[in-house]
């Protein structure tokens, strides 16, 4: 009898609401769209994200510690393995930092070729970003189209450096060797086909209703928040902050080239998509200017075999495809750096994930991870 009474008393609807729990979903480290070994612990209410925590470090190799035990020159190849998607940019950032510390002047010719290669790396990185981002949202054809063009860039890298992915393209003081014959033609051929190919991707995505529905107003971040959380690169520019290290603090010969900094307005996933597409076009513009203006001269400066920079510390950063990539190197006057600190853009960009994801659906988390363009090699170091 008592039980019957109890049943009558209980408000089933209320009990039901109380009984629903948050579902903890463990996304990664083995998941198709966390771009590596990122682990995101999601707290879901139905399919909406109420809380999330990133667990990183699955790819921690201790690059900073390793570089303390190697000479300045030997540590350079390790830096390629940070952001392995644009190894050239990583290499450049490290090499430039050491050059700045040691006061090495790089000849103009080497500078121009460095610019060409890093801009190619930017295009290739953005292509890979677009490919995986689109695949995450379900557009699988763009994925293969992008890889087709990336292949061309990797061929050029192979031609110049002998390697396709971790190229170790530069040396302290300049380049390891002069560019081979046919380099100019290969680069120009690539620049020829690129605009048409970018419009192919745009035809598939830019005005696609589903793409708009999936990216507009998803992962919105205001410029103030973006700066506070430390976003850099296209993710910051998507929020409308017109800041690019190539313009703000020109390194190499970037002050000699004409290019625009594309910015977004709403700071959503769609704007970041447009910004990156435009950045590819601008990178092509820089490459075309540089390839026509390669000056005559040496490809490397004279650098002592055993490099011993004077005591001191230097922070230098470049505009890598993913944002501000900086190296902080302390020299104690010996052949090995005392401390190397890598400021990877992805590490800071990933911090924004929580802010951007709360209140969105699980499917949006995937889109937002994609739009932040993270590489775990650089986050975990």
């Amino acid at each position, binding site marked *: 009898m008592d039980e019957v009474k109890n049943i009558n008393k209980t408000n089933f609807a209320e009990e039901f609401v109380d009984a629903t729990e948050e*579902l903890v*979903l*463990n996304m990664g480290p083995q*998941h*198709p*769209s966390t771009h590596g070994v990122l682990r995101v612990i999601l707290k879901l209410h139905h*399919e909406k994200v109420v809380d999330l925590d990133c667990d990183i470090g699955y790819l921690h190799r201790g690059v900073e510690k390793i570089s303390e035990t190697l000479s300045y020159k030997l540590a350079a190849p390790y830096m390629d393995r940070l952001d392995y998607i644009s190894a050239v940019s990583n290499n450049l950032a490290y090499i430039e930092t050491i050059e700045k510390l040691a006061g090495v002047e790089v000849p103009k010719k080497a500078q121009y070729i460095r610019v060409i290669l890093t801009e190619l790396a930017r295009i290739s990185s953005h292509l890979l970003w677009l490919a995986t981002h*689109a*695949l*995450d*949202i*379900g*557009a*699988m*054809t763009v994925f*293969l*189209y992008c890889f*087709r063009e990336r292949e061309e860039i990797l061929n050029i890298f192979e031609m110049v450096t002998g390697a396709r992915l971790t190229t170790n393209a530069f040396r302290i003081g300049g380049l390891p060797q002069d560019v081979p014959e046919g380099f100019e033609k290969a680069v120009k051929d690539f620049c020829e086909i690129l605009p048409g190919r970018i419009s192919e991707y745009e035809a*598939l*995505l830019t005005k*696609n209703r*589903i*793409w708009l*529905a*999936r990216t507009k107003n998803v992962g919105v971040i205001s410029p103030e928040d973006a700066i506070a959380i430390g976003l850099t690169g296209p993710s910051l520019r998507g929020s409308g902050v017109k800041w690019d290290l190539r313009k703000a603090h020109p390194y190499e010969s970037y002050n000699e080239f004409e290019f625009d900094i594309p910015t977004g307005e709403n700071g959503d996933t769609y704007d970041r998509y447009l910004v990156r597409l435009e950045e590819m076009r601008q990178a092509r513009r820089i490459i075309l200017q540089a390839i026509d203006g390669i000056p005559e001269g040496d490809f490397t400066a004279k650098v002592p075999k055993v490099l011993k920079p004077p005591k001191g510390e230097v922070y230098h950063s470049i505009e890598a495809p993913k944002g501000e990539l900086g190296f902080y190197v302390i020299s104690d006057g010996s052949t090995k750096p005392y401390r190397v600190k890598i400021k990877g853009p992805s590490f800071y960009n990933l911090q924004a994930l929580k802010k951007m994801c709360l209140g969105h*659906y*699980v*499917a*949006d*988390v*995937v889109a937002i991870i994609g739009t932040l363009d993270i590489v775990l090699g650089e986050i975990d170091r």
Partner: protein
Amino acid sequence: MEFLLVVVVKIVIILAFISLGVAYLTYLERKVIGHMQVRLGPMRVGWHGLLQPIADGLKLVIKEDIIPTQSDKLMFILAPVICFLHAFLVYTFIPFDGPKGFWGYGGYISDVNVGLLFIVAIASVGVVGIILGGWASNSKYPLLGSLRSVAQLVSYEVAMGLAIMGPILLAGSLSMVDIVKAQEKMGVWFFVPQIVAFIIYFICGVAETNRAPFDLPEAESELVGGYHTEYSGFRFALYFLAEYANMITVSAIAATVFLGGWLMPFPSILGPYLSFIPGFVWFALKVFFFLFVYLWIRATFPRYRFDQLMAIGWKILLPLAIANLLVTSFIILYLKM
């Protein structure tokens, strides 16, 4: 006795045909999408990879059978079978050819007066297999996937059911054969007067079969594999075959109800020249057309988000289907008066 023999032979033929069709639909998908994506697709096994489906099937059969320890074992084993069974059961009522087809034996296993209703009913039992599979895996991704698929299938079934009411009203019958005959009599296939219903039906059909851009229950970039994440080997193959069989079903219903089934296009013009082609060839061509559109869509579109998918189902397709049904019935009433 002869009747029984005929039925058994027909069942064997149709089952073999459909199984082979399903296997080669995977090949077709890989080839078509491959060429759309500037690559070749399977090329290694056999001439232009023609034996690839068989190699895949063999691989899946001889793979280790894994049943997760934490799963509900009975349900885990049962679920893909339910899915598979109902996907193939539907073919009982689909007319591949007219009553005079198949050398006079009738181009279908059975023609009942509630055929279409029966097909829709049976096809929706398949979703039980998906729910059970996701639930029995006792894992979070399959659970989310199966929950999504329940919500999706239930909401799209309503719009789909209402959409095929239009042609049924025109034909005045639920029998698949009668629907085709009505189209023959009317002289125009139902997709012309029922263009709205046709479009709604096809969109719902894509959603019903969990295909892109509505492939949320198995969205691999979000839910890893959706309801079949924990399945492997032959059990996975059953789900896989069921999905492709469902694609053929949806295409076959569309071909029958809207595109005149086994009928020849423009019989007054082409009739004298092409009458030697049997009806099932026309039927197969129509089904192939729908399947090709399926694959084309998959290669072109990104994936919808779950809430957007539901919004399309309930806010756009369902009202449209109801409106179409009302308009059709009023026109029929007016014509009869």
